[in-house]
């Protein structure tokens, strides 16, 4: 059994949050900003501060589009998207953390839905 703690999130995130200079460019560029309770730059700060419980309660992990715009803009080589994904992975890997169930899928499928969408959402929202 894995030990889910702040070090676990840091380890799987593959980014060094200590390099952040808190300029906010990542959040300024984020297309999902208005839908986020915790903003991209705050994810980076909170991880650095070790705020495990705060991170785990975030709803923004389900609004991030993985568009990589924040990563592209960061002048310090930090990857906020990686932090968000690491938090989401952690939530989903802990028991009962999955955000979608197989039963949820059939009612929302329409005639045009691309396979890519279902596969991607499943990868992002279930472990």
């Amino acid at each position, binding site marked *: 059994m894995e030990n889910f703690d702040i070090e676990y999130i840091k380890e799987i995130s593959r980014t060094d949050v200590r390099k952040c200079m808190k300029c906010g460019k990542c959040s300024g560029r984020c297309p999902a900003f208005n839908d986020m309770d915790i903003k991209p730059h705050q994810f980076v700060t909170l991880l650095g501060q070790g705020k495990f419980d705060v991170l785990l309660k975030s709803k923004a992990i389900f609004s991030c589009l993985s568009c990589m715009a924040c990563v592209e803009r960061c002048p310090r080589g930090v990857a906020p*998207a990686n932090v968000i994904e690491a938090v989401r992975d952690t939530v989903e890997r802990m028991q009962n953390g999955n955000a979608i169930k197989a039963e949820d899928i059939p009612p929302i499928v329409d005639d045009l839905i*691309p396979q890519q969408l279902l596969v991607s959402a499943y990868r992002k929202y279930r472990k």
Partner: protein
Amino acid sequence: MKICYYPGCTLKNQAKRLDDCARLSAEALGVTMEEIPEWQCCGGVYPMAKDEIATKLSSVRALDYAKHHGGTLLTLCSACHNVIKRVNNDMATEKSIRDKVNNYMRLDERYEGETKVIHYLEMLKDIVGFDNIKKAVKNPVNKKIGAYYGCLLLRPSNVMAFDNPENPTILEDFISAIGGTPVKYPFRNECCGAYVSLTNKSLTEQKSKKILESAAAVGAELVLTACPLCYYNLKKNGGDNVVYFTELLAKALGVTE
């Protein structure tokens, strides 16, 4: 010339037109796309976490096959391209991932990121050449066209190395080559809302509408994409004028109606 080709699941189903038009056009331009045998779905999204190994194996299997069959792997779907190229980068640069994957796969020869991954647009630009496409065009498109890049081809640019991530030009050059007039608009490299459309429709709706309004404001008659998910999200949100770039290419070359 023959190149190993990875179509991916969506191009076999919902986005068959993207694939069909690409193959016909490539053939007309002297390139045969050889579908690799027994490929598996790339997963649609690149898994960022350090310990994600199993989710990368399907990409590595395709990459390893291509390594022994010409050394280049051609992609067409933006998502497959993004996933396979980033996994390949991991195999070349991240020792812990490379070792775990190789320990698991037990290939005759270790895979270490040797294969070159190219997107269909890069094939058009670097192997065929836009000048040669111009010469092969039978029915110039003659329309104002807005290129929609989205995210997956461009970012993260240090790995994708596709084009300038803030001011790309390859799709505009493509449009010029097939006789269209490219029109640039501010939201051409913004996200359409991606897979979040499954769980948060209003977010995707806002994002997609913004892109379409931005293209309409500069007079785009058509909007071009290379991604089945962008295509879906834009269509769902009013983008009746969205087309796959290969549909226009095939028309221009006179290989489809």
